[in-house]
């Protein structure tokens, strides 16, 4: 299962959970009208539990996910198999090397000659495997290990003007 599929499923479950709760309360809105005060007391108790559950689930999850950042390590320049310079132009990519071997770890040093672009690598199935912004005056680094052979596409992920959607290049990965 791809990372995107997991994200999609988790989001769907959470959104569906919200919808179910609202629908349940909607269906339970009629009939006998309790004196509101005891209901409020019960609801505040439930809210406290809800708050604590969120606190002890969401916050540790968020913190844990900070331990796995897609940013290159400080020694990536030395440890990468290949270092590739990428420059975005309106509307083409200038890439110093475009052919790699399966299993190679490539450090992309991404900048721009004009406006903001986004350097996104798509695999054979048109699935985004990683991206970074290409900004004038800055070099962003992005590291990717090509696990599978194939022809990867580079698309522009940041709107850069009239031919933004046509800014496509290819990277070839072979065994």
């Amino acid at each position, binding site marked *: 299962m791809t990372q995107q599929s997991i994200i999609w499923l988790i989001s769907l479950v959470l959104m569906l959970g919200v919808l179910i709760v609202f629908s349940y*309360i909607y269906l339970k*809105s009629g009939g006998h009208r309790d004196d509101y005060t005891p209901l409020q007391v019960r609801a505040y108790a439930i809210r406290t539990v*809800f708050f604590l559950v*969120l606190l002890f689930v969401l916050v540790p999850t968020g913190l844990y996910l900070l331990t796995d950042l897609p940013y290159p390590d400080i020694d990536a320049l030395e440890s990468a198999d290949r270092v590739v310079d990428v420059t975005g132009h309106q509307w083409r990519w200038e890439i110093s090397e475009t052919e790699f071997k399966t299993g190679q770890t490539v450090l992309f040093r991404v900048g721009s000659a004009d406006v903001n672009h986004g350097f996104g690598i798509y695999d054979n199935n048109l699935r985004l495997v990683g991206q970074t912004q290409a900004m004038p005056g800055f070099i962003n680094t992005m590291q990717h290990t090509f696990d599978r052979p194939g022809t990867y596409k580079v698309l522009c992920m940041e709107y850069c003007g*009239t031919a933004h959607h046509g800014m496509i290049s290819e990277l070839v990965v072979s065994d």
Partner: protein
Amino acid sequence: MSEQVGNTMGPDEGASPWVVAYLATSGLVFVLLMLFGSAMRAGQAGMHDMDAALFYEIMTAHGIGMIGISAVAGAAIMWHFLSRVVNLSVGIFKANLILFLAGVAMILGSIFLGKYHSAWTFLYPLPGQSMGMWTNGAAALFLSGVLVIGVGFLLLHLDIGRALIAHYGSVGRAMGWPQLFAGDKSELPPPVVVASGMATIANIVGLVAGATILIMLLINLYQPGFVINALFAKNLTYFFGHVFANVTIYMAVIAVYELLPRYTQRPWKTSKTFLLSWTASTVLVLIIYPHHLLMDMVTPTWMLAVGHIVGYFNTFPILVVTAFGSLMIVYKSGIKWDVPSRLLFFSLCGWAAGTMPAFIDGTISVNYVMHNTLWVPGHFHTYMMLGLVAMVFGFMSYLGKESPDEADSWLDRLAFGLFMIGGAGLVLIFLYSGKMSVVRRFAGYQPEWQGITGLAVWFALLTVAGSAIFVVKFLTRLGASTRDAPRVTQPKAVAV
């Protein structure tokens, strides 16, 4: 008329003509821009041949227009209810709408006459580097139009700040900070005041940041030697954009705080938890924006980590206080549902549901494969369309009611069904397309991406049809909207 229970509720007062003007403008512009959005999706689906420049012009108009008109609609709701508590300037309120319309004319001129299409984000240096697709004059007209609209909203918020200070002594008192932090035992400010205080603090800061980058861009257009740091420019743009876009919903939710209590005859009371929640939202909305920069790796990692973790905290006020509060007030209330109350109640469902894919997208490792895909419009359309727009249509439908006994017509129910089904289908396809890595802001799609996009067009058109019915009905009820008269049927079967 029976006595109302609630927050700022006195008699059920109609809206002032200027509030009605704000809402009528909002409704018409919402529908027009929804049609623009549908045309974009149809172009992406290959259903008609759309020139790329025209696509991006429409995209620019849709983006900047939706943010601006959401703010106009939110401001109308906030002003309507806040003016019952503090003494607001009608002149400033009028000036804001006039400046807005002037700004819109400038923006439309720049886009459809000057062919300007930088997207609403106007990321430096794109406005001045179009590769000959538009002139500096067109760019300057667009940026100036946005600036004019910003000036109008800045005046509005300054007037709200003035009125809050005049009534409460300080904005901090209007936010309930003495009661929250200093043991003050005096009466807590009502929700409309707290929400308006938050919107005012956040938007004044956001608007000043926005005006700063707009003026810098204007100088750069004519003095290219005035070079701007691209990362700094991006920070200012996204800080302004995030704050301004999010505050729209914080203003609009006041309609839920004020109207659901009328329907349920239960008060939506301010409590210390409520005050803490809104104070937290004030801080969070100002510091969360680095989650727009997660793929700008040169940004200090600590700052990106702040954007990531604040996204998780930001769900607390929405879920624990506002969404939960609406559930509590409705449960076994005996509410007599009508289309306005359904829209208001389910708007919070849309807002809460939209926060789910949003905070997940703010996770750095997720953003690496989701940023600038259709996942992003997927989550913001969920809370803006099924949240904010539902709140606005709920308020409009409420104002237009002619009597408490007026039953929903088949057309009202049809509009509700079309809006909800169309909206849900539209956002789910956006999110699914994000899962499929489809890039946002693309005039030309890969063939693999076109099929599902075609389906989205039909859902978009359902949403447009539902919205058009709501708006047309409101336009036929302008007189009723200004009338002081009860609009809500009291709950039945009350057991005391």
